């Protein structure tokens, strides 16, 4: 098994609901709490597993805002695991989930240095490294109904931009989406082989950018009056 996420950059609206749901679930989960520093102070900060960043892609007028949520990619070649001197970072052979054993971590930050995606954040209160668990305590919870055995970010996404599944299974929804929509990986040249895959925005009809108002006599007079009359 190779569990991971597919994130649709076309439908993601950048609402940060996945990040908040992740924080809520995991702060009470196996790696919690995800500490907040100075939550009501001037410079609030804290540990998050999932962060959404916003980019402008292309040049005006052919530009587009793209929101890119990023969490752990659960890389097939996870250098964060290789560099860890204590053995606290490990990748589960059975499903490919990368986890941190918090009893072993010494908080040296080396895994965060090795991660190109910024997936790992040190919890300065607990002194240990924390990261996305793919909600491992949720997806295997047999007390939950099957449709809820998914990561919190996937369940909460109001735009339905996130999908969870097994990339080794060619018939899974994630494999199908990657196949049909031409899924892409971030920084493939580094060779980490990230599992999480992003779906590029679909090609849409061009949106007219010139003034759509017809230049009629009435509108011209209105414009002139508006310019002349001081408000």
């Amino acid at each position, binding site marked *: 098994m190779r569990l991971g996420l597919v994130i649709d950059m076309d439908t993601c609206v950048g609402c940060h609901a996945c990040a908040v749901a992740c924080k809520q679930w995991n702060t009470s989960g196996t790696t919690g709490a995800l500490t907040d520093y100075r939550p009501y102070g001037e410079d609030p*900060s804290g540990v998050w597993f999932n962060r959404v960043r916003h*980019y402008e892609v292309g040049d005006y007028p052919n530009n587009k805002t793209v929101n890119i949520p990023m969490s752990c990619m659960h890389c097939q070649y996870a250098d964060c695991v290789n560099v860890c001197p204590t053995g606290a970072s490990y990748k589960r052979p059975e499903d490919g989930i990368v986890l941190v054993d918090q009893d072993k971590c010494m908080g040296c930050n080396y895994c965060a240095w090795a991660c190109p995606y910024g997936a790992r954040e040190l919890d300065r209160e607990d002194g240990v490294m924390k990261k996305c668990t793919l909600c491992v305590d949720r997806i295997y919870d047999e007390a939950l109904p099957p449709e809820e055995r998914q990561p919190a970010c996937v369940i909460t996404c109001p735009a339905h931009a996130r999908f969870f599944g097994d990339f080794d299974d060619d018939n899974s929804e994630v494999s199908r989406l990657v196949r049909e929509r031409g899924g892409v990986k971030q920084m493939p040249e580094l060779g980490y082989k990230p599992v999480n895959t992003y779906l590029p925005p679909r090609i849409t009809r061009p949106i007219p950018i010139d003034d759509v108002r017809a230049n009629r006599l009435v509108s011209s007079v209105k414009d002139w009056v508006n310019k002349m009359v001081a408000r």
Partner: protein
Amino acid sequence: MHPAFSVILFTVISGAGYGLFILLAAFHLAGIGPAMSHGELLAHGAVSLGMITLGLMLSTGHLANKKNAWRSFMRFKTSWLSREAVFAVLFYPFAGIYGLGVLLQGAAIGPLPALAGVIAAVLAVITLFSTGMIYGCLKTIRQWNTALTPANYIMLGIATGTTLFAAIATVFGNATAMHAGVAMVALVAAAVLKAIYYFWISRVNGPTINTATTFNRATVRLLDTGHTAGTFLTDEFGYDPRKDTIDNVKMGVFLLGFVAPVLVFASILSGAPAGIAWLAAVSSLIGIGMERWLFFAEAKHVVRLYHGAQTCTNSLAEPARGRTSVAPVTDPTDARRWELGDTPGGSGS
């Protein structure tokens, strides 16, 4: 990269300690240079072991969870940090046997302690190499991902070791032209290697904001980082010193680290009192301390691409290409505020 003070002190102090030990073993066991008295041998050994131990203890300073530091020996198979820890500790028994031999038998030690000394010197080189590889193996930091990194760690350790070696020799009235000559050769070699490194990192390439965001055929600009204040990532990787700061420190590295010590040894060779070798030792340690700060401060982690850097080398203060009217980052003073996560042009949602 954020320069951690404890790591700077550790790599400089224990690096010089290993360098000093390598020099001691070379001069004593290979019979280079003048014969050393019992006291001088012990002084070199005690200073090098003391500095190595002090450095290793300081290295735990940046750990967030020090009680698990002993576990760092567990992943010898894959982690260079683990290998460094193992080699650093493995060095002690061999150095101890050699030191015991010197303590009991003086300069004319038997073959067994001599062999232990040779092994300890080799382990010292391997430890310096492992320290360099901790940084050299990271594909995420292109400025470090080169064979020059471990080469520099070895060469700078030996260079600072030679200045200390020459300085301690003066205490025992044993300073010779050979000490000064070896120190000068090591310092010049280290300076050339460092200059090659600085030349190389000025033109390093790697991932860009395009491959990071997957949009390879368009200009990509950061609109908003998605957080209102600093995060672990901005604290750790967002360190962005000004260009003139970097240039000034680089000047200090060459002046204090290499030029001043070489001049000191040159003046010793032309008749100045040998005692000023201590000036060279102190100056080179300060210079290499600055070099180590620069090593971290100049390294740029690829995660910065997600925070608005266009390439692996450019500063976040540089304007995005292809945009003149509403550039998200044009004013360098605004870009400084990135460290607080406040992106100019963003809504700060």
